[in-house]
């Protein structure tokens, strides 16, 4: 059985460094609080499950600026939400590629919601609260 926590760490580092020009600098102790933007993708195929990311809207806006290569004040809310969905999608693909390189998966279009605190990931069996330079990023994963 693969060490899913290590695979998720590896996938997060790859995605954040290569596509968001950010990086993981540690883990946040305890659960995040406050209003957050959340993106969830479901996957099916060789394995089934869900991956959710959530961050404060301000953190997601900085990540979106890095992703799109523009200044934060040039980004519309709709773009921030779209980038949150891309983050969930790409992170899920990277994780699944490490988990089962020979697998066959379909990843659903992202579902974007506004949530409070860690509510969106608290129930998920695997949770990570990554500390980034831009703020914190919560990632929750369920693999059935």
């Amino acid at each position, binding site marked *: 059985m693969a060490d899913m926590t290590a695979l998720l760490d590896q996938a997060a580092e*790859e*995605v954040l*460094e*290569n*596509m968001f020009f950010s990086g993981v600098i540690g883990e946040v102790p305890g659960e995040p609080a406050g209003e957050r933007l959340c993106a969830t993708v479901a996957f099916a195929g*060789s394995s089934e499950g869900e991956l959710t990311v959530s961050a404060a809207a301000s953190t997601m806006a900085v990540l*979106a600026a890095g*992703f*799109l*290569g523009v200044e934060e004040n040039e980004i519309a809310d709709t*773009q921030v939400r*779209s*980038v949150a*969905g*891309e983050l969930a*999608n*790409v992170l*899920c*693909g*990277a994780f*699944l*590629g*490490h988990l*089962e*390189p*020979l*697998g*066959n*998966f*379909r*990843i659903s*279009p992202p579902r974007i919601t506004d949530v409070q605190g860690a509510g969106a990931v608290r129930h998920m069996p695997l949770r990570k609260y990554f500390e980034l330079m831009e703020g914190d990023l919560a990632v929750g994963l369920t693999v059935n």
Partner: protein
Amino acid sequence: MASILIVDDSSAMRSVIKRIIKLSGFEMETCVEAGDGEDALAVLRSQPVDMVISDINMPRMDGETLLREIAADQNLCGTPVVIVSSDATESRASRLLELGAGAYLVKPFQPQALREKLEQLMEGAHG
């Protein structure tokens, strides 16, 4: 200098791919965009390009169908297609390469990796 069609249902991802091409130093003359395979075919039939960069999962017509349509069209079948996807599984990559994709890149990827693929395909298409 190459003209490139970027096909992805996410406008954010189209912007990022364009940005990565510029960051890579690849010489791009023009860049046109399409939101799915159907739009991409319409663009290709009215405005030939040197290369197509396409996502897989898109509404209406996905990247795999677009690849088949390009291969079946005698006016388009020489156009190199680079698939860019978050699907990192080898089985998917193998199938699309067998169907005629010139390259399969998994997101996230380094700008240099994209540049190398684009240059190889340009050389192949014009060599």
